[in-house]
């Protein structure tokens, strides 16, 4: 769900790895990021709409990734995937580190690009592994 730079690249990587992939986005223009030879399926629609994800085949999906720009959209879609459709592997992009903590505690597998990015820069600059941030 979400065919931005991250979503599109992930879809291409997965297809390259031999996986079956359906990419959802609310803008058809976003699919141009997949290139003309994309071997997966693209579908126009909102991933927080249960009918849309059902049509996308979520009931037989092994994994669901929410990678739109909106933390809340990602959180809601992921909880629908997890609790309504029982998808085994659900990974959610949550930019806001605090929200990421909260929903990790609620059982979501959250990835925060904010934390990952800042830590990568820290390590590049200092040569040390980034410690947890004392708040």
């Amino acid at each position, binding site marked *: 769900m979400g065919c931005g730079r991250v979503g599109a690249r992930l879809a291409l990587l997965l297809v390259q790895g031999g996986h079956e992939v359906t990419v959802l986005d609310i803008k058809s223009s976003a699919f141009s990021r997949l290139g003309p030879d994309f071997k997966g399926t693209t579908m126009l629609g909102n991933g927080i709409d249960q009918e849309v994800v059902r049509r996308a085949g979520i009931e037989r999906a092994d994994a669901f990734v929410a990678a739109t720009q909106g*933390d*809340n959209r990602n*959180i*809601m879609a992921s*909880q*629908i995937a997890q609790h*309504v459709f029982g998808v085994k592997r659900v990974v959610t992009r949550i930019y806001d580190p605090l*929200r990421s903590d909260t*929903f990790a505690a*609620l059982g979501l597998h959250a990835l925060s690009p904010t934390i990952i990015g800042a830590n990568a820069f820290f390590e590049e600059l200092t040569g040390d592994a980034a410690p947890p941030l004392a708040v």
Partner: protein
Amino acid sequence: MYAIIAGGGKVGFFLARELIDQGHEVLIVENIGDRAEFIANELGNVVLRGNADEASTLAEAGAERADVVIAVTGDDEDNLVICQVAKKRFGSQRTIARINDPRNEGIFRMLGIDATVNATQMMLSVLEQEIPHANLVPLLRLRNTDIEVVEAMLTARSRVTGSALRDVELPPESTIAVVIRDGSAFFPNGNTVLEAGDEVVALTRGVHEPRLRSLFFAD
């Protein structure tokens, strides 16, 4: 009562005004500066400028002592997250969310939101009630169950009209609870003969609703 209202649009604004009139303590969280300023001019010092879906904003708003957190922004996903953060992170007593897409009601309930208000669904109910005899009108669903309370207006063509209740073959897990006749309600028994014009309030499990409908309506 201390109520935090997330979203200072029309719903949030008027809700706050009424609650303040009733003497409650209210704080509106609104992220658009102009709108926050407007609300402050109209209602006084009851606005916090910020995003209610951010934990730091809810902390500043005093979510841990709020009796109720009401999320009335225009986006279902924002309202869901605001209520979940308020409940899980701050232990807010009660969360109420506005929903736009009626299909989202189930997931909100599943994720522990205490109550939802859905204008789309209300409009639909009003429309159904204004088309007489047309259908089984869903009145409410008992919380956390699939038991529905439905209402039907019987006509001369209804299959059950003219029958005593004991002779009516109801679908399984269904019961006729109340009959409203000529404006007064009573609890029917086996001898009650159903008449055209009776409003019948029944309880049924969701899956049996179609059978109940075909019992009340000739076609």
